[in-house]
């Protein structure tokens, strides 16, 4: 197997704002060409980490490298190979999208500007007309943001909560776009929508309490933290409540007409135990499903435990 070089590495990065230590010791790397989902609670430090990578914030300690070059605060050369889509991209409202992309292209110094701009506008489905950006909806601005971020064919694309402003169709298109970059461009994206991370990420980093509590492939995270579960659907809420009482002392969770039973032993053992208890109590479920843990459950498990686990 050929070893893939890491495009981005963070070594013992620390950052405090006043007395608040946002990043205590962040340490991870991202292999070239992968899609890295970056999750954490509000205020966990995801945006700060991204700004440190872009040289927009100064780290108190630690080293960040992009493409083998160290990132410096203020004017870092590594930005030449990086694309950035902020959570709320800000543009010059008096410009047209073509004028704005032309400005970005001139700054980046890319060749074949006009062709590349047309290509990008086509990709994000914006028209190359005289409409000024000030009249754009938030979704259109987000799409223009994507176009400017990808304009210079970046080796590393950093997206800060890119799908938060998009409608379901736009979100779907954007995720497909990110997924299509796999292998060519390394993508680091933060989000609160964990299903988005599950859908396209190769690797996931969970930031909590100033540390990257978990950083691994989705499969390994499932293996490490994911507790499989049996989900029963009952006819009504009352039956579900009765079912929950019958199944105790198993660690059941009752929500509306559904009962969830996480398990650690073999599926068959737990399933038999559940079914026997239901038959005895004369309860008939409408459906029984075997489920693996969702990323949301893994996330809660990781931030609840607070152990630092890194399989990078």
């Amino acid at each position, binding site marked *: 197997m050929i070893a893939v070089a890491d495009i981005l590495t963070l070594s013992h990065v620390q950052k405090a704002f006043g007395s608040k230590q946002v990043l205590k010791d962040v340490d991870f790397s991202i292999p070239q060409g992968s899609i890295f989902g970056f999750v954490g609670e509000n205020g966990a430090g995801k945006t700060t980490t991204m700004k440190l990578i*872009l*040289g*927009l*914030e100064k780290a108190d300690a630690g080293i960040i490298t992009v493409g083998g070059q160290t990132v410096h605060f*203020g*004017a870092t*050369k590594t*930005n*030449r190979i*990086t694309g*950035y889509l*902020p959570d*709320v*991209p*800000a*543009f*010059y409202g*008096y*410009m047209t999208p073509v*004028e704005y992309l032309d*400005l*970005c292209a*001139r*700054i*980046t*110094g890319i060749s074949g500007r006009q062709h590349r701009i047309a290509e990008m506008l086509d990709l994000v489905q914006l028209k190359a007309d005289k409409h000024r950006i000030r009249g754009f909806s938030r979704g259109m601005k987000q799409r223009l*943001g994507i176009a*400017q971020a990808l304009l*210079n064919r970046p080796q590393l694309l950093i997206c800060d909560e890119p799908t938060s402003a998009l409608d379901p169709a736009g979100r779907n298109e954007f995720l497909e776009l990110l997924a299509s970059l796999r292998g060519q461009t390394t993508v680091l994206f933060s989000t609160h929508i964990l299903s988005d991370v599950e859908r396209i990420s190769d690797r996931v980093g969970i930031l909590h309490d100033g540390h990257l509590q978990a950083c691994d492939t989705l499969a390994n995270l499932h293996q490490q933290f994911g507790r499989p579960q049996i989900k029963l659907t009952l006819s009504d809420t009352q039956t579900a409540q009765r079912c929950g009482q019958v199944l105790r002392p198993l660690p059941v969770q009752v929500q509306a007409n559904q009962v969830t039973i996480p398990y650690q032993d073999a599926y068959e053992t737990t399933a038999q135990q559940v079914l026997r208890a239901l038959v005895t109590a004369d309860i008939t479920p409408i459906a029984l499903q075997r489920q693996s843990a969702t990323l949301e459950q893994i996330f809660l498990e990781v931030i609840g435990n607070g152990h630092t686990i890194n399989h990078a």
Partner: protein
Amino acid sequence: MATLSTMLKKELLETWRTYRFLILAVVVLIFALMSPLIAKLTPDIMKMSFGKTLQLAIPKPTSIDSWTQFYKNMTQMGIFVVAILFGGTMSQELSRGTLVNLVTKGLPRWVVAVSKYISLVVQWSVALTASFLVTWGYTAYYFPDAKTPHIWQGFVPLLLFGLFFLAVILFGSTLASNSYGGLLFTILVVGALYLVNLFKAAQNYNPISLIGNNMALVQGSKTLGELGPGIAIAIGAGLVLLAGTVILLNRKKL
């Protein structure tokens, strides 16, 4: 240098499309048209206002009255219009986050500061020169006398004061988090310079001297050489402020 040219074009496009230059041009051209006209009409206005109750003989207006009116308008109202129009030139970029996309594409921050300064200087120079030429034309038409022989000598210090003043505005706008903060900084600096001007020994070195002696220069009772120290300090301080703007911007979080 290519990025400087790109950003300068962006700045000029911005000032054009946001009507800032248009507003500046209209204001200074109104001053240009009004100055000779007010000088011409002042005796009539006074006669109409006071009628026969006015015992004094009103002297016939001359080109001196026209240029006095022009420099009074430009140095009192003109520069504050400039401060209000351009007070947010950097603070707006910083507060709106519009520089983030460009800086993360490799745009050096000094280019932002220098391009903004050049753009401000271009706008000031064009607007002021146009206003001056219009005033000159109208003054020559209304008052064909020889009482103001050195009109260019009055114009040059005002132009140079503008370069200093724009550096103050840009520095204040980078220092503050909003347009009002930048404006307040500019007002404080100008206020401080007027205070310094109370000391006679400092007057010759004060950049404010560049907007206080224009009529003496126009009439020939003073020469540009006498304002040399003030001019040198205004240019030097302008450059220091521009360098300070770059340093401030380099330290700013975007």
